[in-house]
């Protein structure tokens, strides 16, 4: 198969493998990230009846007019609504820690002082606050859904976060709307997208302009007076986004944080004083609920599942009797989903069907014991119905016995299955409730009975809620396994294709003895290390802490690989120094005689350039050392990961020294990139004029970046600067022109020759010339143009990243560029000693460790949202999605682009001369290796992480560690596809053009 594999076959097999991979991935994705099974329909009158085994029909209440429905609910529930109106104030991203402190400690003094009114309310017990734990993923839309429906949505809600769609499940807002409430919404327009047509008045603000921290909140507050004066609404939703934006820009410690908290405090004060004035109005008893949808990390991001991110606030401010004493830090945590049943019961509507929350009893302090127990009973019935949907044979018939046995049921401690456990717990609760009722009737009242009943209700509710929220949803195992099998097949296909290809290049029969022998022994070391590295990385994907700290793995592997390169270079240095004995000469002459005649010149030249070899070796050593040192600095730049984020690193140290330094570094990095790129460009042996024009285009783009950097003085500028946006747009256009024009034009401009040139002319001043293969005129032209195009791609990409990335990442972008360039120099001066695929693998490794060097991690929290809106004047999901992707995968894509400028297949001697003239063969030479190797490596990672995900599907960290990692792996696969596409298209185009020009020249020469 190996020798007969033509270009077309190779390409079609690769394509087939890719299609299989995509198919398998989508099968697995559908199976693994399902929409959680939920009860259909909307809770109605049946929620006030005991659950029964029969399929319940609730057609009766559907068409009732709102007023009748409201009174019907009131009668059936046997508990009057405690409040008539609700003000729901959502402060996006406010950690409860800011108000309640953490553990034993109070919040910091600055925080206390920032919110004096709220703190005084808490102190006077006019308000009660909870740490309401939010479920991951901690991004806005799924959390809003959780708050209003009490259900935890599927993991993929994150993916839809920027593409909000109407919320169709049973939820609190719909319930309130059905009993005739008038709803008003001010703030984040996510609400409007979730509940279109529900609000009678609305003013949505977009959360897309993350850099704006003032306007978003002003747009909400400006309506507040009018709305508070208006009496027509029953539910007023205020969603303030500013605090989240402050966090995204500056983190928890941002200078803007305290003023923002103070602003929120003022809003609470305004609302509360206004409501207190209307206290006497019986129909207008109003509850103010302040909640946050999620917390934030110290850096101000969110999305993951750390304490900082999930610590959201639930603050109930009622008008009326004081709340019971409640110390939120000493209690068991409550959950964000608990807000839904609490509010539903307070306002006399049925609890939403899929709610898994448990009511917060402290809020019901004004009710009688009977009413409290009734509320617990309603909550239990609702949860029982939901449990019945999950456990098929959990049937209410079993509970009859429980009623008789009462609390005296023997507790076995352990239950055979969930069904028995819930049956037991539920019947115990019902029993305790009944006992209390009996005692109540017989005037033998006992406060103990109440507390026993409440405790046993909570026992059931807590267990049921926990079980429901932790329950791994049923995943169709057939779908998962078939998806994995298809991916496995594609992976095996890719691996065997690469092996075939590599074998073909190095072990063809007509290969000279010398090379084969050389490759058997000495170069075994890198290859086995790369295999070891891939293997250890893949194994490490199974350990949750190694996934969290993946940056260490990649840095370690990459640096080890380059240390091995260093070692082998030292080896070849030592070998070179001793081979100037007669023996060495003989070896060379022997080699030479083994060679086919076409290659004589090359090897003669090699002998001549032999003195240069030492210089070459020192060049190689210095470039490897540059790569290593840059890698270490990159590693120290961001203390990534999860467990040691707080440790000092270079970026924190620079941020301490102020915005000026950061700006200065930004511009330094720009200059350095331009200088290095000019160096790289002038290494090419192409026409000076062409090179000069290309360099001018870099300069033009660089100048725009410079203007942007001057305009845009750090993230802390409050207002959006429109001139900065327009400069960024100009920059995008300029880069697009450069990136499209230069690759199109360069192949037509590079000098091509139809004859073999004399090698003498090529021994020019550049010691780094890419020159071992100059007796193949066609390849000469191709290599020249791909080199120039590759450099252009890399420079433009780096400049783009200088605009998009956080300013602190400017230097790392430069370091990455330097690393790739140094590797390129090392590889091209290296005289075909390494196997070529090792070079592709090494650059892939560099890209991966650079990915973490830019501050990314495997938690969704490190995705840089702020950068995704640079230069976008109107809201566009697709554009910002593309920008976000290019920020996150900056390093991987840069490494793929740099593959274009490296030349891999230098040793083309095995091709017979007539095959050299086939276009297909040339394509194969130029693009097969840089396309095939990244695809193979990525496919190995993708397949193993899929398998690991399958095995870990019941692991505790499945949603917090493994699933986010899997999303990252999928996105990395996409980046590989993009990179490979660019490589392939550029390579094919360049080859075709140069080939055509050479042919034309030849024909002209023949005809003349």
């Amino acid at each position, binding site marked *: 198969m190996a020798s007969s594999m033509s270009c077309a076959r190779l390409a079609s097999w690769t394509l087939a493998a890719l299609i299989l991979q995509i198919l398998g991935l989508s099968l697995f994705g559908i199976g693994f990230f399902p929409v959680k099974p939920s009860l259909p329909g909307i809770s109605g009158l049946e929620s006030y009846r005991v659950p029964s085994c029969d399929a319940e029909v609730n057609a009766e209440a559907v068409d009732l007019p709102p007023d009748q429905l409201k009174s019907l609910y009131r009668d059936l529930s046997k508990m009057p609504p405690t409040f008539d109106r609700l003000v729901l104030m959502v402060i996006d991203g406010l950690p409860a820690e800011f108000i309640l402190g953490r553990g034993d400690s109070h919040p910091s003094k600055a925080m206390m002082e920032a919110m004096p009114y709220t703190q005084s309310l808490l102190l006077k017990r006019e308000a009660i606050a909870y740490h309401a734990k939010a479920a991951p993923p901690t991004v806005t839309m799924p959390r809003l859904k959780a708050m209003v429906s009490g259900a935890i949505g599927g993991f993929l809600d994150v993916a839809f976060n920027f593409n909000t769609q109407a919320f169709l499940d049973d939820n609190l807002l719909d319930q309130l709307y059905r009993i005739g409430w008038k709803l008003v919404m001010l703030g984040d327009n996510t609400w409007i997208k979730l509940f279109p047509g529900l609000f009678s008045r609305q003013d949505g603000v977009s959360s897309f302009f993350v850099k704006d921290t003032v306007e978003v909140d002003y747009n909400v507050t400006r309506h507040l007076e009018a709305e508070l004066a208006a009496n027509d609404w029953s539910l007023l939703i205020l969603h303030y986004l500013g605090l989240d934006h402050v966090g995204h820009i500056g983190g928890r410690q941002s200078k803007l944080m305290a003023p923002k908290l103070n602003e929120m405090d003022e809003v609470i004060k305004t609302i509360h004083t206004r409501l207190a004035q209307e206290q006497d109005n019986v129909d207008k008893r109003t509850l103010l609920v302040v909640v946050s949808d999620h917390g934030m990390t110290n850096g101000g991001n969110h999305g993951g599942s750390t304490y900082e991110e999930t610590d959201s606030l639930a603050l109930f401010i009622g008008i009326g009797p004081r709340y019971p004493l409640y110390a939120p830090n000493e209690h068991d945590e409550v959950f964000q989903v608990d807000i839904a049943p609490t509010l539903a019961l307070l306002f006399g509507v049925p609890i939403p069907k899929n709610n898994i929350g448990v009511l917060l009893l402290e809020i019901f302090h004004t009710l009688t014991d009977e009413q409290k127990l009734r509320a617990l009973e309603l909550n239990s019935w609702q949860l029982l119905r939901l449990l019945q949907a999950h456990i098929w044979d959990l049937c209410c018939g079993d509970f009859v016995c429980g009623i008789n046995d009462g609390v005296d049921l023997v507790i076995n401690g352990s239950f055979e299955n969930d069904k028995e456990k819930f049956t037991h717990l539920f019947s115990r609760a019902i029993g305790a409730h009944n006992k209390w009722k009996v005692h109540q009737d017989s005037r033998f009242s006992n406060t103990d009975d109440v507390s026993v009943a409440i405790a046993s209700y909570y026992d059931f509710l807590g267990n049921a809620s926990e079980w429901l929220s932790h329950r791994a949803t049923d995943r169709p195992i057939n779908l998962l396994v078939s998806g994995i099998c298809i991916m496995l097949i594609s992976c095996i296909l890719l691996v065997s294709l690469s092996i075939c290809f590599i074998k073909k290049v190095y072990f063809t029969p007509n290969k000279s003895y010398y090379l084969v022998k050389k490759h058997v*022994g000495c170069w075994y070391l890198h290859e086995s290390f790369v295999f070891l590295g891939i293997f250890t990385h893949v194994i490490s994907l199974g350990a949750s802490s190694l996934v*969290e700290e993946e940056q260490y793995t990649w840095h370690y592997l990459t*640096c080890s690989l380059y*240390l091995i390169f260093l070692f082998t270079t030292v080896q070849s240095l*030592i070998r070179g120094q001793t081979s100037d004995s007669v023996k060495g000469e003989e070896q060379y002459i022997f080699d030479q005689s083994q060679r086919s005649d076409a290659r004589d010149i090359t090897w003669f030249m090699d002998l001549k350039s032999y003195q240069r070899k030492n210089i070459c070796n020192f060049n190689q050593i210095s470039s490897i050392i540059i790569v290593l040192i840059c890698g*270490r600095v990159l590693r120290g730049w961001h203390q990534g990961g999860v467990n040691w984020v707080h440790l000092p690193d270079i970026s924190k140290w620079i941020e301490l020294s102020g915005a000026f330094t950061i700006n200065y570094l930004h511009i330094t990095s720009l200059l350095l990139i331009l200088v290095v790129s000019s160096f790289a460009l002038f290494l090419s042996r192409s026409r000076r004029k062409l090179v000069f024009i290309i360099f001018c285009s870099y300069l033009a783009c660089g100048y725009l970046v410079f203007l942007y950097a001057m305009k845009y003085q750090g993230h802390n500028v409050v207002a959006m600067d429109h001139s900065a946006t327009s400069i960024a747009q100009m920059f995008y256009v300029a880069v697009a022109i450069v990136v499209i024009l230069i690759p199109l034009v360069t192949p037509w401009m590079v000098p091509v020759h139809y004859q073999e040139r004399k090698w003498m002319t090529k021994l020019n001043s550049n010691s780094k010339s890419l020159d071992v293969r100059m007796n193949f005129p066609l390849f000469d032209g191709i290599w020249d143009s791909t080199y120039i195009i590759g450099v252009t791609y890399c420079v433009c990409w780096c400049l783009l990243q200088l605009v998009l990335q956080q300013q602190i990442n400017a230097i790392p972008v430069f370091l990455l560029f330097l690393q790739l360039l140094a590797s390129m120099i090392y590889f091209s001066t290296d005289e075909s000693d390494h196997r070529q695929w090792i070079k592709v693998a090494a650059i892939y490794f560099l890209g991966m460790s650079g990915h973490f060097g830019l501050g990314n991690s495997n938690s969704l929290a490190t995705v840089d949202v702020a950068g995704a809106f640079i230069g976008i004047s109107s809201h566009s999901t697709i554009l910002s999605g593309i920008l976000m992707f290019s920020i996150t995968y900056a390093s991987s894509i840069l490494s793929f682009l740099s593959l274009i400028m490296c030349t891999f297949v230098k040793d083309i001697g095995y091709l017979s001369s007539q095959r050299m003239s086939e276009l297909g063969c040339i394509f194969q030479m130029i693009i097969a290796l840089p396309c095939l190797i990244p695809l193979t490596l990525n496919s190995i990672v993708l397949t193993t992480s899929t398998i690991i995900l399958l095995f870990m599907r019941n692991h505790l960290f499945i949603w917090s560690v493994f699933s986010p990692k899997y999303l990252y792996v999928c996105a990395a696969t996409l980046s590989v596809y993009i990179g490979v596409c660019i490589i392939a298209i550029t390579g094919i185009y360049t080859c075709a053009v140069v080939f055509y020009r050479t042919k034309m020249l030849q024909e002209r020469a023949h005809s003349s």
Partner: protein
Amino acid sequence: MGSSAQISASKAFTLHLLCALGFAAAWAVACDVFSWTLVAHPALVLRLLFSVHAPFVIVVYSMLRREPEHCPFWKAVGRGLLAIPVGALLNAFGAIVLGAPVGTSYLPKTIYWSLLMSLFTFVPAACVVGSSRTGWQSFLLANSRPIEELDCMIILPAYGAIIGSWFGAWPMPLDWERPWQEWPICVTYGAVIGYLMGMLVLTPAFILGIKRKARVKGD
């Protein structure tokens, strides 16, 4: 090559055992006399290990020097002493590039660790061959040409120590929160295990293998 190339397996084993015993003695002194542990006092223990182990290594390997008739014993010792800082620099470079922390609080640990690693890797070779290029060639190019007994004695412990410390670093990012996960404790454990393995197990085995091969060839 050198005249002292013919070394029997038992002699190699004895010499290596001497080194290992010296090392064990240093360890025992640290544990019993000073009641220091590597986990609690890494810098102190590493310093003690280095200063006790250094004379053993230098003396043993200086006895094995190449061309003893041209090169007096004290010269080999001098080469060994000179090689200590050079090897330490190389090892420290490798460790820092691979991610060893560079803070001032870690500085003494890194210094003593790399001194110890220098004893494991660089000093023996320097004692034996000095600055002779062909000698170094036989160590560095060992994977591409047949090796001799003396090469074995130097290469295997050194590679053992390097590979051991490479693997020893893997537990460091795990979140087990054990004190031994700190730099350079588990790396030192790995290095010591690899070093001792190389000295006491691999070297005799390799030398026996070489002897057998030679015998087969002779037959």
